[in-house]
Each structure stands twice: as structure tokens, then as C-alpha cells.
């Protein structure tokens, strides 16, 4: 799917001009004033009775309170999940697939509500939650319902009397730690395969975005047996770490940064359990010279959108195309046209369907982005546009808005090497194919990349040469289920959005069976 195809670009067909904020009269979404944990199919108070404020980045003001979980809450959730596993593990693939399909239907039926709630909590434009985040979440549940039904075990005939049968079995109770950039979609990427495989889950949302997933659980909770999905909120040190190192967890899945990724592997080594990690990147977006062979056609228009996609989701995407590499012969032309396209980005109230870039997810994220803009300037990069915090006035003055920013520089600069996780693009030039690949691969990470060329040959060779798990070719930022997503190098371990992730949540049970009538003859 694309935003354009879904006609959300104009927003005019999508209800009110500007969605009323949750809590205001007429809003399609309502948050409770306080949320506990979701354990055993019901909302429960944190064991220690503590809560923390949840802030909307749209205005910078708190809008609800959320349970501040501790190891006691994690223990309770893990125990509850294991009890639920006793019956959940016996459900048939058909039963589980049906549940996942019903979840997808329920999400779709409440699309607008969930999208507005997500935008309010995260700050991203509502046109993105309406067209991408929430429809993709529904589709991911359906995808894993589908692959589960299609998945088969195997058998190997070892000799005429001996057969090896391979069965898929669930792991048990798994822990999942969710990032704040796509609170519901990232939770779905992890929940859907885990549930399809027959596991029970204890899920810890990010402390910046703890409530939207609880709003979702209120909508879909009745479809899932009690205790199969449990959500414990809280701070990483108080709730995340106890979950990641819990001795009764059979696997941990995490999306986030490298230090915490290492810490989670370290805990996993104590418990000898598997992990899947998605740790981000510094994705190159490579424009070969034939892109500008014709600057008036729809392909060129598409390429300019590709250049500008660094601003999607406010730049808070692990695969943000934050390094644009442009071949020298078309450098001035493409950069000029690209900057013109960047200049057309509409920044505003995230709840306005015409807004293209909203608020950064938190104050510390805002501060970090601004500090990187300083690093860019001080490191010798040339600021071409943006480079500042934006005050949108009125209620939005307290929100966390950054102007789409483009720097020109060289790949050894820190703004070319570190994931800023904001709407900041660093542009540089390359001479030829080998130079392009060399610059593209000169990074610690290898999650995403983009290749733009009208030549299938160049695009193919570049795509194969770039060390990244996902190379978008003549497109960018599409996240459909059924296409494996994950990292090379320091970008992580495992492949999401695909049958492969179902297998990451499964044990292989081998029954090795002899049908021979007599002994082997050793004794």
C-alpha cells in the first residue's frame, strides 16, 4: 500500500479537517485518566501502587497516568502467562489463526480511533497512522494467521524402517520490549508471530508511549484467552530489565539501540535463551545518474519523494533514509529538486490530516536531534535547510517540533554515521558505482538502504552489493508483511514481518521413530 494510493495525501476524504484531541469533546478516541497493567485479561494495579505521567508530544502536556511496573509486576505477569500457556499451547493452528484474523477485523473496525490515539501519544501525523501504521498492523495479524495455516512440519525418511518427524512447537512464555516510534505496529510485529506460534507474551511498551497499546488491548482483549497477552508498563531499569533477565522467559525480542541490545544478549546468555534484536541503522539512499535522465516524468517525481522520505514518521524510523548519496554528474540538479520537495513538507498539528510532519516523540528526543544539528554545524557540514526547532504557536508551542533539515557533507562526519532519529538528512556525492557502494557500506549498521536507478542492471548489482537486510529498489519505506525485515552488521539479529519470524518463535521437535521389528544389533 502507499499513502498516495489510499488517497490520504489530501486528507479530504478522511473525516474532519482536524481531529479533536483525545479528551476533547467530539474526539473519536478517548484515553482513560489512568491505566494499570493488563495481566490475565484484566486491568490490575501495579503491585507497588505507583504511576507515572504520560505526555503527548503534540503539546508537551500530560494526558494520562500509567502503571509504573516493577519486578513484582513482571513476576506476576510471567506466572499468569505460564498458566495461560497450559491451554493456549493445545490450541490448533486453525483456532489461533482465527483469533488473529478477528483481531485484524477489530483493528480495522476501529481504525480511526486507534490512529488518532496513536498520533496523540506519539506525535506522528495522523495521515500516517491512518494510512500506514494501523492498516499495516491489521495486515500483519492476517499475514501470520495465513502463514500459520500454510506452515507444515516435515518428515525425513532415514531408511526403510526409520523416520524423522519435525514438529513446530511453541517456546512458552516470551518477553517483548517495544520501541516508541511505532508503538502499535512494532508491538504487532512481535505479537502476531509469537501468538501464531502458540506462545504467551509479556510485553513491555516504551515508557514514552505506554498507553496506546493498552487502548488497543481494551479493544481486542475479549478475542484473546486471558493471560495469553500481558502488558506491563514502567521504566526500563525497573520493568524492562527484570523482564529481559527473568529466568522463566524463553525468548526475548527487542527493538531499540545497541547498548540495550547488548545488555539483553548478556541477560539471555545467563538464561541460555534466544533473542531477536532490531537495533537500527544509518541507511543510505543511493541515486545513480540515470535517475535524472528525464526530470519531467513520474519516475523522477517518485525519486524526489524517495529523497524526501527521511521525514516520514518525523524521521523516527530505524530505516530512515538519512544519508542521500547522489552521483556527481546529477548532484546539483537532484539536490536542488530534492530541496524544493523538502520545502513543500507541511508541518503542523499532527491531528490535521494535511500535516506531513508532526512532533518528535519526546522532549529528550527533541533535545538529541537539536544537539545533532549542532554537531553537524560544528563538524563542518553545510546546513541547506531547516536546522531549528519550530514553534507552531498556541497549544502546540509546548510540543516537540523540528523543521525538516538537510545537511551537505562527507560520510566521515558524525551526522553521516549516527542515527539521529529525526527529520535530518545528510547528503553527499559519489563518483561511480564502486564509490557509491563503498560509501553506502561505510557504516556500522546494515538495516535498510535505497537504490534508485532506471537501469535494472545497476539497481540489481547495487542492491546485492549493499550490506543491508532490506534494500528498497526504486521505492523506500514500504513495510508489507511477507517481505523479511532485519539487519546485517550491528543492526540486529532475526527477520521480522515474515514466516522467518514465526520460526524464531518456534521450537523444532524431532521425533526419531524406528519401525524396525528387531534390535539394531549393538548389544
Amino acid at each position, binding site marked *: 500500500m502507499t499513502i498516495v494510493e489510499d488517497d490520504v495525501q489530501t486528507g479530504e476524504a478522511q473525516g474532519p479537517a482536524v481531529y479533536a484531541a483525545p479528551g476533547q469533546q467530539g474526539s473519536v478516541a478517548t484515553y482513560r485518566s489512568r491505566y494499570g497493567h493488563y495481566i490475565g485479561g484484566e486491568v490490575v494495579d501495579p503491585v507497588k501502587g505507583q504511576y*507515572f505521567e504520560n*505526555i503527548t508530544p503534540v503539546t508537551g502536556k500530560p494526558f494520562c497516568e500509567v502503571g*509504573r511496573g516493577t519486578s513484582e509486576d513482571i513476576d506476576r505477569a510471567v506466572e499468569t502467562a505460564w498458566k495461560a500457556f497450559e491451554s493456549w499451547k493445545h490450541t490448533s493452528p486453525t483456532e489461533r489463526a482465527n483469533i488473529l484474523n478477528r483481531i485484524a477485523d477489530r483493528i480495522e473496525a476501529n481504525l480511526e480511533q486507534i490512529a488518532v490515539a496513536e498520533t496523540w501519544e506519539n506525535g506522528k501525523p495522523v495521515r500516517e497512522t491512518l494510512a500506514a501504521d494501523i492498516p499495516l498492523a491489521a495486515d500483519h495479524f492476517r499475514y501470520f494467521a495465513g502463514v500459520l495455516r500454510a506452515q507444515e512440519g516435515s518428515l525425513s525418511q532415514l531408511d526403510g524402517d526409520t523416520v524423522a518427524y519435525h514438529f513446530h512447537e511453541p517456546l512458552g512464555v516470551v518477553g517483548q520490549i517495544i*520501541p*516508541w*516510534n511505532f508503538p502499535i505496529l512494532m508491538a504487532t510485529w512481535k505479537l502476531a508471530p509469537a501468538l501464531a506460534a502458540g506462545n504467551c507474551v509479556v510485553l513491555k511498551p*516504551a*515508557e*514514552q508511549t505506554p498507553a496506546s497499546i493498552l487502548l488497543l488491548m481494551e479493544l481486542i482483549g475479549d478475542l484473546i484467552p486471558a493471560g495469553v497477552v500481558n502488558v506491563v508498563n514502567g*521504566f*526500563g*531499569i*525497573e520493568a*524492562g*530489565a527484570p523482564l*529481559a533477565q527473568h529466568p522463566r522467559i524463553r525468548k526475548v525480542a527487542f*527493538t*531499540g*539501540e*545497541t*547498548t*540495550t*541490545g*547488548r*545488555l539483553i544478549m*548478556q541477560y539471555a546468555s545467563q538464561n541460555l535463551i534466544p533473542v531477536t534484536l*532490531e*537495533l*537500527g*541503522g544509518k541507511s543510505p539512499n543511493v541515486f545513480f545518474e540515470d535517475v535524472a535522465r528525464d526530470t519531467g516524468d513520474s519516475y523522477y517525481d517518485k525519486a524526489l519523494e524517495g529523497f524526501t522520505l527521511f521525514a516520514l514518521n518525523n524521521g*523516527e524510523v*530505524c530505516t530512515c533514509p538519512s544519508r542521500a548519496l547522489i552521483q556527481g554528474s546529477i548532484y546539483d540538479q537532484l539536490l536542488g529538486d530534492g530541496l524544493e520537495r523538502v520545502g513543500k513538507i507541511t508541518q503542523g498539528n499532527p491531528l490535521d490530516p494535511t500535516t506531513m510532519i508532526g512532533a518528535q516523540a*519526546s*522532549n*529528550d*528526543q527533541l*533535545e*538529541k536531534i537539536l*544537539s*545533532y544539528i*549542532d*554537531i553537524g554545524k*560544528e*563538524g563542518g557540514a553545510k546546513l541547506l535547510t531547516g536546522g531549528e526547532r519550530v514553534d507552531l504557536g498556541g497549544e502546540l508551542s509546548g510540543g516537540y517540533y523540528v523543521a525538516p533539515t538537510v545537511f551537505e557533507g562527507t560520510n*566521515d562526519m*558524525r551526522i553521516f*554515521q*549516527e*542515527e*539521529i*532519529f529525526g527529520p535530518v538528512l545528510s547528503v553527499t556525492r559519489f563518483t561511480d558505482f564502486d564509490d557509491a557502494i563503498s560509501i553506502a557500506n561505510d557504516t*556500522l*549498521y546494515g538495516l535498510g538502504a535505497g537504490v534508485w536507478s532506471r537501469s535494472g542492471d545497476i539497481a540489481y548489482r547495487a542492491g546485492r552489493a549493499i550490506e543491508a537486510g532490506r534494500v528498497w529498489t526504486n521505492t523506500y519505506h514500504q513495510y508489507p508483511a511477507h517481505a523479511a525485515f532485519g539487519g546485517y552488521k*550491528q*543492526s540486529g539479529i532475526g527477520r521480522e514481518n515474515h514466516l522467518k519470524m514465526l520460526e524464531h518463535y518456534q521450537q523444532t521437535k524431532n521425533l526419531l521413530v524406528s519401525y524396525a521389528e528387531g534390535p539394531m544389533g549393538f548389544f
Partner: protein
Amino acid sequence: MTASVTHSRVAITDDAAAMVRQLTAQHGPLMFHQSGGCCDGSSPMCFPLGMFITGPGDVLLGTVDAGLDDPIEVYMSAAQFEYWKFTHLTIDIVTGRGAGFSVEAPTGMRFLIRSRMLTDDEVEHFGLLTPPAVA
């Protein structure tokens, strides 16, 4: 060691040092590990000593004085250091809510890195003027 008195790759602001003292009272001695990658990547993570295992893949950038008995060690992965080695880092603190397992998150504050390029003098001191000698 004497040279490190005048040359350091890392520093800490007074506000951040005050937070380190407060957190040390709660958690015991602390250290920092500079993260990279997604989400809260590029943020300094603050852990109780022993929680995060450093190893040959890490570089000790230096220590900062937070007004405690012992200096606070600041680490970064060696691979990341290759890209950061010309940078001086100052640990600051801002209002916020970092993810990860860093110990300050519940306070509603978040450690943040402020950076500047090393001065010519510092570049020379750290042996970065010429390509690194073969080990």
C-alpha cells in the same frame, strides 16, 4: 595518566554530576556506556557497576568526576569509537524519558551527550594527527 588531567575526551555538567550523585546513593557506583543505533541510540546509558559487561569490544573513553569518591568510567564500543574518535563528549541532562535500561529514567530526566570536535591540541595529544600506528 598525568596527561589525562589536562586532556580528556569526556566531561560532565554540574547538573548531570548532581544526578549521578543522587543515583549513586540509590544504586551504588555507576558507569556510562555510550549507545548507538535506533530509538535512544546515541544516548549515554548509565548503569550500576557490574550490570553491563564491558570487554575487548569496548573503549574506555575516560572518566568524569561527579564529586564522588571514585571517578565515573565512560565507555563506548570500539567500532563506534572509530567514528567518534575526533569528538569530545560532555554528559549533560535534560527533561525527558529515555528508553533503554538507564537508571535515571524514573526521575523524569535523561542523560544526553553534548559534543564538540577535539581541538588541534587534543588531536595531537590523542595521537590522531597521523594514521594510527600499526599495533
